[in-house]
């Protein structure tokens, strides 16, 4: 059960007034016609699914009806901050350190499903 601080209403409100809308900060390609299938598929379907800090888009559906962003931990469910559309998060996940013990000969960059 969340209590979410709506940055527009400037107070904590019950979860029932909100709807989650998926990952935040997704930028639509400026020129869809020029996209490869790869780029367009990535834009449509591929989302971050971290076990940890996640930036999400929520809407205060029964309230001010504004969209805003939530930084939330997907395991503890703790809401770390909420901020308006157009703003950048102040809380972010650790920059991708060696998140696995994969050895240096591993091919890890630049591979996309």
């Amino acid at each position, binding site marked *: 059960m969340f209590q979410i601080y709506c940055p527009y209403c400037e107070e904590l409100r019950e979860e029932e007034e909100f709807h*989650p809308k998926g990952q935040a900060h997704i930028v639509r390609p400026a020129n869809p016609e020029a996209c490869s299938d790869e780029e367009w598929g990535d834009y449509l379907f*591929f989302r971050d*699914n971290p076990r940890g800090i996640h930036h*999400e888009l929520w809407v205060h559906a029964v309230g001010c009806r504004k969209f805003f962003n939530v930084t939330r931990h*997907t395991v503890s469910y703790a809401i770390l901050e909420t901020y308006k559309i157009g703003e950048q998060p102040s809380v972010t996940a650790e920059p991708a350190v060696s*998140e*696995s013990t994969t050895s240096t*000969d591993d091919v*890890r960059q630049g*591979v996309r499903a």
Partner: protein
Amino acid sequence: MQRYSGFGLVKHALSHHEHWERQWRNPTPKKQYDVIIVGGGGHGLATAYYLAKEHGITNVAVVEKGWLGGGNTARNTTIVRSNYLWDEAAALYEHSMKLWEGLSQDINYNVMFSQRGVLNLGHTLQDMRDIQRRVNANRLNGIDSEVLDADGVQKIVPILDCSKRARYPVMGASWQPRAGVARHDAVAWGYARAADALGVDLLQNTEVTGFKIRDGQVYGVHTNRGDIEAKTIGCVTAGNSGVLAKMAGFRLPLESHPLQALVSEPLKPILDTVVMSNHVHGYISQSDKGDLVIGAGIDGYNGYGQRGSFPTVEHTLQAIVEMFPIFSRVRMNRQWGGIVDTCPDACPILSKTPVKGLFFNCGWGTGGFKATPGSGHVFAASLAKGEMHPIAAPFSIDRFHSGALVDEHGAAGVAH
């Protein structure tokens, strides 16, 4: 492996059941295997079993970070059905259904598969049109399925509120008589025991922390119990698939959501089938023990917490009471959440990946349990041959770039 039978039960009774042998070994990891399966849930264990049984590949390790069948296998609502709309999905789930029908005999373990039938209710004209379309598609695919009107539904479930006074009156349903429920733990345990008997090493408390990849080819995993090598690795880790894919350096089009379910106090037998409603948004069956097993949709946000929100529970129970006013005073005993990895098209991913030798079986969303045998069967064939089995082929990751989605949101609906 000691075979289970009625005679064996009597024999062991004479020694007060003190001499049953362990169902599976607890081996130490070898340095090298032919195949590693990451994830010891139902799908992973089934994959290992069919690898050994159908393809003679017995030098297999199942690597599980917790205990066998301790994830979604232990947390689902055990519904088994195959009435999916599209040919690709229908083939996959019907393949699974056929395996369910012989499963207890095959693995010498009573998985308590009970073909008590599943009803998908329709409450609007559009629901009924969708149901008719789906039933017709099912029949063309050789799946038993029929359309019932409200009277037909009432005959099967006398306690369902089919009156015109209901807020969402029942107009009819699709009915799959061969569908039903199975005992979720028994499925994992049965596959584990059968796989172990064929020589598969089941490594519990072994967490994969990274992949060993050279020149785009996988050759092993790092675990908390040391490195284990294999040229073929299958990941079957449901909600955690995205995390594993990240370790291997690519992304999956998955989002992990909490999916909740609840069970009531045990009641006398009152509901002998499974009732699902996409529209009112809830589904219910009664277990052999007598509890009502209830579920509904996912919580809308991403979460790995194996718990969900109270409003979702409330919504689910409102739906159930709406359909079954008789249950309005039943008390709920337990509530829990699983982590479901949902795909944009509500169909799974059974696929090769950009890393050679690394295969993923994931994205089953809210409905993986029903597919356990079929998923394991076709995934094992794919791992053994290095090429995706024809039934699995349409579920490649490539479809999210080619656009060849298999949109099963309608059939997946509330409970999938």
